[in-house]
């Protein structure tokens, strides 16, 4: 029996299914959300359970400026993706580089905060439960920002070597879904660590 014989005389026209990249990215975001949920639950559960200092309210200061940087990078990447879909490559490049810059600034902020906490406050991942949960949760998020920045930088390399074309707009949009997710997670981490965590 030949395979072609099962092509029944169907009345199926215009068979459209969702893009596999988009579906795959949604699934990845689902899996990452589950991972973050466990770390968030652990952080919540352990608030106020440290047997020794330092406590969050003594050492944490909300990184407002760096948070604004990260959240506004969601806007710039959105604008960048819209520009490449419209085949305006120069505008795309400007917004894309702005995104990398804003994301990099955020990472710089995390690094500065950690250096301060380690050197001046004596808080490391093994100091107490607060240190363990804080560095794990914020570090897991920073790891995701780093991976995102790597991906954004690879795209930037393609942009500067003039290999990027507007046909790839959908792929970049899928990458931007990941970046939006990383930003959204920061809203939760920020609320938990710098608002709920320090008020206890």
């Amino acid at each position, binding site marked *: 029996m030949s395979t072609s014989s099962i092509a*029944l005389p169907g009345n199926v026209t215009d068979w459209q299914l969702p893009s596999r990249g988009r579906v795959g990215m949604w699934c990845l975001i689902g899996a990452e959300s589950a991972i973050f949920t466990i770390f968030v639950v652990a952080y919540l559960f352990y608030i106020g359970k440290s047997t020794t200092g330092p406590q969050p309210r003594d050492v944490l200061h909300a990184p407002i400026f760096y948070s604004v940087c990260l959240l506004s990078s969601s806007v710039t990447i959105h604008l960048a993706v819209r520009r490449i879909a419209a085949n305006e490559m120069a505008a795309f490049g400007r917004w894309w580089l702005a995104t990398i810059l804003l994301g990099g600034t955020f990472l710089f902020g995390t690094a500065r905060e950690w250096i301060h906490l380690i050197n001046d406050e004596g808080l490391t991942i093994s100091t107490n439960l607060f240190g363990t949960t804080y560095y794990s949760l914020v570090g897991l998020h920073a790891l995701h920002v780093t991976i995102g920045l790597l991906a954004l930088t690879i795209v930037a390399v393609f942009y500067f070597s003039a290999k990027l074309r507007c046909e790839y707009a959908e792929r970049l949009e899928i990458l931007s879904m990941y970046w939006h997710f990383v930003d959204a997670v920061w809203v939760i981490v920020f609320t938990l660590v710098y608002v709920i965590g320090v008020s206890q």
Partner: protein
Amino acid sequence: MSTNTIVLSEAPARPLPLRLHEWVTTVDHKRLGILYVLYALVFLLIGGVEAAIMRVQLIRPHNDFVPPEVFNRMFTMHGTTMIFFVVMPMVFGFGNYLVPLMIGARDMAFPRLNAFSFWMTALGGLFLYFSFLGGDGLYGAGSAPDVGWFAYAPLTSKTFSVGHSTDFWTLSLLSSGIGSIGTAINLIATIVSMRCPGMTLGKMPLLVWLNLVMANLVILAVSPLTAAQLMLLVDRYLGGHFFDTQAGGSAVIWMHFFWIFGHPEVYVLALPAFAFASEIIPVFSRKAIFGYPVMVLATIAIGFIGMSVWAHHMFTIGMSAGANTFFVLSTMAIAVPTGIKIFNWLATMWGGKIRYATPMLFCAAFLFQFLIAGLTGVTLAVAPFNWQLGNSYYVVAHFHYVIVGGIVFPIFAAFYYWYPKVTGKMCDEALGKLHFLLFFIGFHLTFDFMHIPGILGMPRRIYTYEPGRGWDIWNLIVSVGVAFQAAGILVFAGNLISSYFRGKIAGNDPWDAWTLEWSTSSPPAAYNFAVIPTVRSRRPLWDLKHPEDPDWRYE
């Protein structure tokens, strides 16, 4: 003659290294599926030997076949191996192989991610078994992990688990977990985005539906396990305190994190097994599946309820009355959709023209074994009853009844059913029936009688016991059953090998089945379908074979 056969007959025999290289670098979903299954079979033999070592040790009181510390390693390695490196890769292998063929696609959505996922899983198995060599570390303490397959804190802390055995355990689960999540993403994207024209969600074969729900469960359940392993690594390598009770950490939260994975995991393994039964029972009853929409809804219900029952593994640790009540009720509720499934399979067989070929034998045994497993599950869902029998051999008997009687039996059915498609040769029926008989006898000797020492108070994980407690004869019977199971497995392995070389040529559709994979050649060409098919009903091959009475008139 179709183009497939021409391509196949033209392929010249290449030297072995080149052919092996092709297998290592392959991104073809069928080859990766076969790799998953072969990999799982190797670990099935290893995990089986570990079980046999435990049963020899327990065959009589005060036996000294292995020392206690080796016994601890055996139950840890047996559990970890069987769950993560036998049943999971097995169901992923079948899913990988069958899902694209059943939905009329040429490959998975992300072939390279597929290969990555397989090799991450393979790496996980290597990590686990490398512990026999590398687990000593510099401490000369312990080789393989001996903390039990759920690795409760504080056993996993540096204090109680010196050396690297626990590190290998956690790295192994971390890397195979990443592989599992990758495969799950791939399965969902494939099922959502790659279906052939006409195959709406309501026309997908049940196997595809069940794999879709399974993949969602993997994403929701394996990710927490991955997170918990990361925390354990932080504790062990960076001096963290997540599970360190001395510094205010909690041992109970590890239990929650583990079982949030651990219970949905049962459904991750069971749903593909149900999927095999849902494909095989109709074909061998010569009837369409009874109540297709209800089967789909029951599957989705299992997915949802399965996420909210995890703490029934923790009744014995002492939770609040509210938590106990919630988990008792949710656990009992899950018996409803599973019960619906059993009735639907029975109704499919009812009035059918049943052919008891080997796949159907395994499915028939599965039906009533799974029923018994479910019933002992309902007894264990009652918290006060659980306080009596938790952590006894009754629990061990119950979950082996689920996993062997309710999951491994349909997996064997799937082997005999799809072997002709994968290899192009029929699996020998006489040997298949001998395998069934031996394994069926062995299974019931071992796991029916294992309930009794549990009820008599024998705790799990003890390396030996005092004579005269009424446990002796039951342990002897249980251990004798293992010999039958081992013989069955050897017949099975021999059958797979000998049928590959000497089996009858299968042809495209040896079972007169109805789903798309039987429309291609056996084995299918690399591209699966020369022309992408179009379907109009749930049984496209029925429509093709019976143009005068096609299914799409009634659906």
